[in-house]
């Protein structure tokens, strides 16, 4: 391969953080913090350099050849199998990495944002115990995420997929001494596992149907298999994979873990729960677009789920008071946007939004982290206010990000959101309306957040007041960089209608399957004027949201409370997140535990009781009759042996009287029995 040094060495990209993680987890305890920072941030930096180099070199290739693959070794050569056609084939999954336009975007974002967040963490985590552990986990996360992205096949992607889940678990539970943190970590892992089950099954089905799980071979295999649009099996694969995506990317119905995940340190929220990991689901759906596009049903499901999640999460975000939780719901909502995009066939728009969202949402989280840092750990917005002048850099960058997420042109969010809404409208106006309202809500709650935090009257407690300080440079520099990116990040996707060239969409185009039948119509031509109208509408509603937030949270702060009292039902519903957690607990979690309890009892009493314990069936029958059956079997042989004596003894005891005549009589009886046994034989010859 002579594609260039970096392209030939893409396998090194995940390896640097892996090495960093290994060093940390094995020897970290004895290392100085400075060394830890150097190794971990350094490894990510090197990764970033390699990633950037690789992307650069990929761009240098002609558009149709932008695909490189490196196979390191045979990983799971599990022997022979049948494919769906009943043919014999060898199952052999290699440890193979690849780079193409789709994941080059991802790898760039991940290493880039990841690097910034690592740098930020140096400052943010500087005073925490378990510094090495934190960085070790972070590096491990980078490794997993990069494996996920760079994997050339589904199984290896699944490695990353589970790996990031694990790191998420470990990092959410970083403060493991806090029960809520540990609970949240567990919840995240288990909910994700449910999704993973879908991925696993989807993978099996893909392998069976297409005979391959190599991403690059899927499209040719589909072509070779002559699958019709709407083939049920494709729908099945798509939906199974989408289950996984809903888990990882926090979509309905598996989004519940993400708000709780805010228990983790803020850089973790920024990196994992905003910028990178949660987008894995989006990435996977985009990656498997060849399959999804064959299934209108699945696409519909994706779109509707996305739209529903978007508005649902946004509505919950309206009333939250925890600064990170607002952002968490915002993330869910934005992920919903991305799925909406994917579902309507606008894969490039989805990925585009993924990228811009990574920039501004990472920025928002880091900013909020900076705020929290300044507030000595306070996260409740009701105890903030008027911080603008006290932490100016944070505030300004935060404001930029807020504008970006609100979709104010020409910031990054505007372009990506606009692309999505445009595509959605073409698919279905209803989806557009939902997205449009969500946009308004987004603008509202984000500005509610900004207003409550940085403007208005200070509600900061006195002791916290003293400590308020701007964060160190290691934290503000990443903020600034991200702010810049939040501004300019969207420009590479400057739409044609505004005089741009849609460079981003063209770049991604080779990885998107193009079937002759028009499915989403996302990329279909449409008139510029109509597009202008849509843009105008979305900017308008964003401004409306901003105005409302300003009016309610700066000018007339009593209004929200009045509203909350007047609409107390709705308020409580929103505030309590529609009681979904409670419903899940009641329906699934507790029922599972109950089932476990019941089965445990069943196991002890029934299964163990049947034909076992030396006494067998007789024991059980007798024990049933004799009321104290339960105690009987549970107490087991120890007590049983005494009782067995009683049970078995009676027939024997009855006859074993010790009296000779009795024994003699028994002999007589035996004789009678034996003779009786033969008397029928004796009778036989007597005609």
């Amino acid at each position, binding site marked *: 391969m002579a594609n260039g040094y970096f392209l030939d060495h893409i396998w090194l990209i995940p390896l640097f953080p892996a090495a960093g993680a290994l060093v940390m987890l094995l020897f970290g305890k004895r290392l100085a913090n400075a060394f830890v920072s150097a190794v971990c941030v350094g490894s990510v930096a090197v990764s970033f350099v390699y990633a950037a180099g690789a992307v650069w070199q990929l761009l240098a290739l002609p558009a149709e050849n932008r695909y490189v693959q490196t196979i390191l070794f045979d990983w799971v050569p599990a022997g022979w199998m049948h494919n769906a056609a009943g043919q014999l084939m060898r199952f052999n999954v290699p440890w193979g990495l690849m780079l193409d336009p789709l994941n080059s975007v991802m790898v760039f974002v991940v290493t880039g944002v990841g690097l910034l967040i690592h740098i930020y963490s140096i400052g943010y985590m500087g005073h925490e115990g378990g510094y090495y552990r934190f960085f070790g986990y972070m590096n491990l996360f980078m490794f997993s995420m990069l494996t996920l992205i760079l994997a050339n096949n589904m199984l290896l992607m699944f490695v990353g997929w589970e790996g990031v889940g694990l790191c998420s678990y470990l990092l959410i539970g970083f403060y493991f001494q806090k029960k809520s943190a540990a609970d949240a970590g567990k919840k995240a892992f288990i909910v994700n596992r449910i999704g993973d089950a879908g991925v696993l099954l989807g993978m099996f089905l893909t392998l069976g149907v297409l005979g391959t799980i190599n991403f690059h071979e899927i499209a040719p295999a589909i072509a070779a298999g002559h699958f019709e649009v709407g083939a049920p099996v494709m729908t099945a694969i798509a939906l199974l994979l989408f289950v996984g995506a809903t888990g990882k990317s926090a979509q309905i119905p598996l989004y519940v873990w993400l708000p709780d995940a805010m228990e983790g340190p803020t850089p973790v929220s920024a990196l994992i729960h905003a910028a990178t990991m949660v987008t894995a689901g989006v990435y996977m759906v985009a990656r498997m677009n060849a399959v999804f596009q064959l299934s209108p049903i699945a696409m519909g499901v994706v779109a509707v789920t996305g739209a529903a999640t978007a508005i649902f999460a946004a509505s919950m975000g309206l009333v939250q008071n925890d600064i990170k939780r607002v952002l968490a719901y915002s993330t869910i909502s934005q992920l919903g946007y991305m799925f909406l995009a994917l579902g309507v066939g606008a894969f490039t728009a989805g990925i585009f939004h993924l990228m811009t969202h990574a920039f501004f949402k990472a920025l928002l989280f880091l900013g909020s982290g900076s705020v929290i840092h300044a507030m000595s750990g306070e996260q409740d917005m009701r105890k903030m206010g008027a911080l603008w002048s006290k932490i100016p850099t944070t505030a300004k960058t935060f404001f930029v990000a807020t504008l970006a997420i609100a979709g104010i042109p020409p910031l990054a969010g505007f372009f990506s959101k606009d692309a999505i809404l445009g595509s959605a409208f073409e698919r279905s106006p209803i989806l557009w309306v939902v997205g449009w309202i969500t946009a308004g809500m987004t603008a509202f709650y984000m500005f509610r957040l900004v207003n409550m935090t940085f403007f208005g009257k200070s509600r900061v407690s006195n002791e916290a007041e003293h400590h308020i300080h701007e964060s160190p440079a290691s934290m503000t520099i990443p903020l600034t960089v991200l702010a810049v990116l939040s501004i300019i990040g969207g420009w590479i996707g400057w739409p044609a209608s505004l005089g741009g060239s849609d460079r981003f969409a063209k770049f991604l185009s080779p990885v998107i399957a193009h079937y002759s039948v028009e499915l989403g119509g996302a990329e279909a031509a449409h008139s510029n004027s109509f597009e202008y109208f849509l843009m105008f509408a979305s900017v308008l509603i964003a401004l409306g949201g901003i105005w409302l937030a300003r009016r309610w949270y700066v000018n007339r702060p009593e209004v929200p409370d009045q509203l909350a009292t007047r609409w107390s039902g709705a308020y409580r519903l929103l505030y309590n997140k529609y009681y979904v957690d409670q419903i899940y607990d009641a329906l699934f979690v507790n029922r599972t535990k109950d089932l476990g309890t019941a089965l445990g009892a069943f196991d002890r009493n029934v299964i163990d009781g049947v034909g076992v314990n*030396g006494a067998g069936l007789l024991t059980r029958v007798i024990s049933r009759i004799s009321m104290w059956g339960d105690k009987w079997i549970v107490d087991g042989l120890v007590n049983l*042996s005494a009782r*067995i*004596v009683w049970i*078995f*003894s009676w027939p*024997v005891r009855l*006859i*074993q009287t*010790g009296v*000779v005549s*009795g*024994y*003699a009589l*028994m*002999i007589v*009886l*035996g*004789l009678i*029995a*034996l*003779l009786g*046994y*033969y008397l029928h*034989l*004796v009778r*036989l*010859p007597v005609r």
Partner: protein
Amino acid sequence: MSVFLHMLVNWFALHFGFLRDNHDLNMVKPQLMLAFFGIAILLTDFLIEPGQKYFNAIFALMGVGFSGTILYQLGRKIGAEGVQDAYSSTVLIDHFSIFFCMLFLAVTALIILLSIRYLQIEEENHGEFYALMLFATIGMMFMVEGLDLIVQFIGLETMAISFYIMVGFLRRERRSNEAALKYLLLGAFSSGILVYGFSLLYGLSASTNLQDIANAVFHRPPTNPLVLLALVTVAAGLFFKIAAVPFHQWAPDVYEGAPTVTTAYLSVASSAASFALLLRLFQTVFWPVREHWVGLLGVVAVASMTVGNLAAITQTNIKRMLAYSSISHVGYILLGLVAAGSGPNGNQNGLTGIAFYIFAYAFMNLGAFAVVIILRRKGLIGDELEDLNGLIHRSPMAAVLLLIFMLSLAGIPPTAGFLGKYYIFLSLLQTNHYYLAIFAALYVVPALYYYFRVVVHAFLKESTDPVKVTLNPWQTLALTVSGFVVLAAGIYPEPFIKLANYSLFLPFGPLGR
């Protein structure tokens, strides 16, 4: 006293050459030897100081030794010259009888070894006991060698009466008295039933010779009522001796009450001899009507296993537990006979199985009792499960051997008991007795449970008894020998299987229906 004279003559004849060629005498020389030493013990007992009563045992051992030597030569002889009969065909010296006689002698020797100290402790250390043992052995040997109802009957009675006395040998012990009296009353009663059957057999054939009777039975219609009546009564009499359900009830009481050495001897030798007799009769006289007794034996066997196993579970007295366990073993052996009698030509594996089983059973049961015997000391009978507590600390060797015996009794490889069960199961399967086989196999489970209660006490319970268990050399020897045989027959069973196969007494050729 005629036999005494006879024997004296023979003794000299052996050494002085004349009468050496008396065929009949040559054939019963092993028994003669035993009788000689038995009587010698009776005579010399008066001369032996109370402290040196073990000389009696040595005499007895010598007798057994000589007898065994002669028996071995006899075996060589029939190996070379073929099966031989003697005394007008009233005895038959064949492989079958050689095998069993050897087994009796071995068992007797081991019991003698175990008795020495036991009788000392019981303060009943009389020469009579050893003499009775030798006489009982004579009886047993004639039981298996007998080819004539009268010889068999007299042999059986000689054995039985010796045992009545040995059971009651502890005259001042109430349990011993009671056991002896019970055993005698029931034994005599069952002998009456047996001999009633014998009388009918005689009535069927006008002969007491087994071959003649077999011929007569063969030529009668298969459902001849008298044959069946004879079968029932003879079977009942023998079932009593081997303690098969429902004729088993004496066994637990007698086992418990008798001196432990007698119990051991009774459970091993008496059972084996009665089994030999039963086999001999069922393979000759009743062979033609085997289709009738197969089912009967199956029922009795299952009943024996059921009662034996279930009752044994609850026992706290080891001797009693072993009594019930031996009842269940009887069930297994009878199953072997069921298999042996099934099918057009019978099943040879069944017979091998019986021989191997009896052989194994002799040593493993003897070993188990031996452990109880060594526990006996002044003030402790040692037959309760609690008495075994912590045996592993008090005498590791005895405990380990006890484990081996228990495993063997339960039929766990690699011990002799397993091979016995192996053959029984195999033969049952081969003769399509699937349900019997499953029954028999599953009964191993409760059996293991009660055998392991013993193990639990010996290994897992803490000892409440500070006294160390000591073994005298005789006991050690007996224990080691039984342990060795049980283990050897499990690990390398080939020679033992050969031995069992050697012993096969195939039903008379022309009679196989």
